[in-house]
């Protein structure tokens, strides 16, 4: 054999399953991007100053006696914001997380195309920050490029990247599905806490004695998740996927001053589409003979 030896992270079983499906591993390919986060103005400053309550009568320290009257610059909505809190998406941060992922995935695709691959399997993703560069975020994807004996991709067809193992790839292919690639979405949401939350978090305040839900945090978190999932769906729709499998949700919450919260949500999944051929196989019970 004159070819170079292949390199792969595939296990023995996965390797054999891939061979069975007519794929052979080529080499490890990677795509990586490191992006420096730009400066983001704290939205709390802008919002708070425009919502600042004005004092009529009463004096300092008269909280709770009814002497202090809020004169909202807006209307009921302003008071509602102050009491219940408000959330907003940090566009710059969100864009950074989405860009870094797209960039890395594109590079992985380019790298795989150079290697002559029809698919990349076993893609492992590393996301995060560095201790030495706290304002940089990283997205690195490393996978095994595989070539096919029979199958060829069209010139403009995107190479499927999947975080699935070789065995899973085969099972999917055999059952009539073709993976389209990694799809993802990110969202960074800033939650400005309301007074309800502030009082509940104040040690030994009357409000803090009883069990209750932090509604502003809960809503902020679920909105961040909704937005990230929405972007994943959008990406999947662009490649005309039928569904997205094995979705992973990574989240990070950091507290800011004044009980405010920054929520970062990252979702990643594998988009799949049905093929014409292939049908589900029968399933039988079996007792494994492998090691426990």
């Amino acid at each position, binding site marked *: 054999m004159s070819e170079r030896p292949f390199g792969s992270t595939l296990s023995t079983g996965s390797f054999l399953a891939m061979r069975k499906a007519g794929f052979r591993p080529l080499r490890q390919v990677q795509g990586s991007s490191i992006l420096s986060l730009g400066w983001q103005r704290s939205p709390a400053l802008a919002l708070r100053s425009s919502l600042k309550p004005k004092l009529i009568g009463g004096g300092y320290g008269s909280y709770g006696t009814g002497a202090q009257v809020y004169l909202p610059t807006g209307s009921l909505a302003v008071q509602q914001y102050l009491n219940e809190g408000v959330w907003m998406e940090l566009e710059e941060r969100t864009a950074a997380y989405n860009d870094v992922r797209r960039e890395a995935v594109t590079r992985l695709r380019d790298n795989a195309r150079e290697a002559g691959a029809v698919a990349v399997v076993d893609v492992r993703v590393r996301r995060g920050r560095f201790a030495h560069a706290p304002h940089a975020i990283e997205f690195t994807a490393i996978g095994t490029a595989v070539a096919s004996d029979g199958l060829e991709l069209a010139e403009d067809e995107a190479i499927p990247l999947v975080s699935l193992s070789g065995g*899973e790839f085969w099972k999917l292919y055999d059952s009539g599905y073709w993976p389209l690639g990694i799809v993802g979405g990110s969202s960074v949401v800033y939650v400005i806490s309301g007074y309800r939350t502030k009082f509940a978090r104040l040690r030994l305040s009357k409000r803090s004695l009883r069990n209750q*839900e932090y509604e502003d945090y809960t809503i902020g978190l*679920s909105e961040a998740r909704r937005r990230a*999932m929405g972007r994943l769906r959008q990406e999947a729709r662009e490649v005309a996927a*039928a*569904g*997205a499998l094995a979705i992973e949700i990574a989240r990070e919450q950091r507290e800011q001053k004044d009980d405010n919260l920054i929520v970062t949500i990252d979702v990643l999944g594998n988009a799949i589409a049905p093929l014409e051929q292939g049908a589900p196989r029968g399933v*039988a019970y079996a007792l494994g003979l492998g090691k426990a």
Partner: protein
Amino acid sequence: MSYDPTSVEGIPEHGRERLRRIRESGRFFTSDLSVNEFLLVRQAGFDPLGLVLGSSIYHIGLQLRRWDKNQELDVLTQAMYHARELAMTRMEEEADQLGADGIVGVRLDVGRHAWGGELAEFIAIGTAVKHREGELHRAPSGRPFTSDLSGQDFWTLLSAGYRPVGLVLGNCVYHVAHQNVGRWISRVGRNVEMPNYTQALYDARELAMERMQAEAESLEAEGIVGVDLHERSHGWGSHVIEFVAIGTAIIPTKADHEIATPSLVLNLNDPPPSLK
């Protein structure tokens, strides 16, 4: 507690919009099922509809306790139960909006954060599924069924003539009494059982399981499978422990529960991630 299957109370406005879009667009689904689970859920005659989740960030109130007394900490127990229930109900409402029969692969996570001792985050997440032939598989109460079984277990259970009706849960937060000096001296240097410790853990475990059992009874289930009984200390110190019992309540769909004789195979699967 009465449950209105059409209620969307806990779901934020935009969440409703997302679910409506999923329902209207029809085909596209999202799911955190693995490939194996996905294929088996399809084999069982179900289609995944979407990833559904509910969450609640919860403030835990003030709990008073006696230093030297074994007791259940009811404020903490209620907080941990109520917040889980909020998250679960929201997840169920999302599934309901999708017109699902139920939710498989439910995971309940409790997150506690360094920045808030009295604050806990509860998340319920799973994949909403619907029967392809339109057979209704909901729980007797009209709720979508919930189950923490994997896709594999779900398939096996259905083909053996059972179906899940609901995730049942019981919990108990317990304070284990500190022992006083007199007792400590009387035992020093000897092998003896410490009855107050034994009793405390026994009690707490029993309470959690009993509550889970009661939930299953209210679902008119035949039994509970896959019970996971675990204890966690959520940063409340060494003497406060939460016991949680979670399982899936099932009811029979046919009289016999025979399965085909298993054959022997050598598995080519990848080792589970923990062995890698």
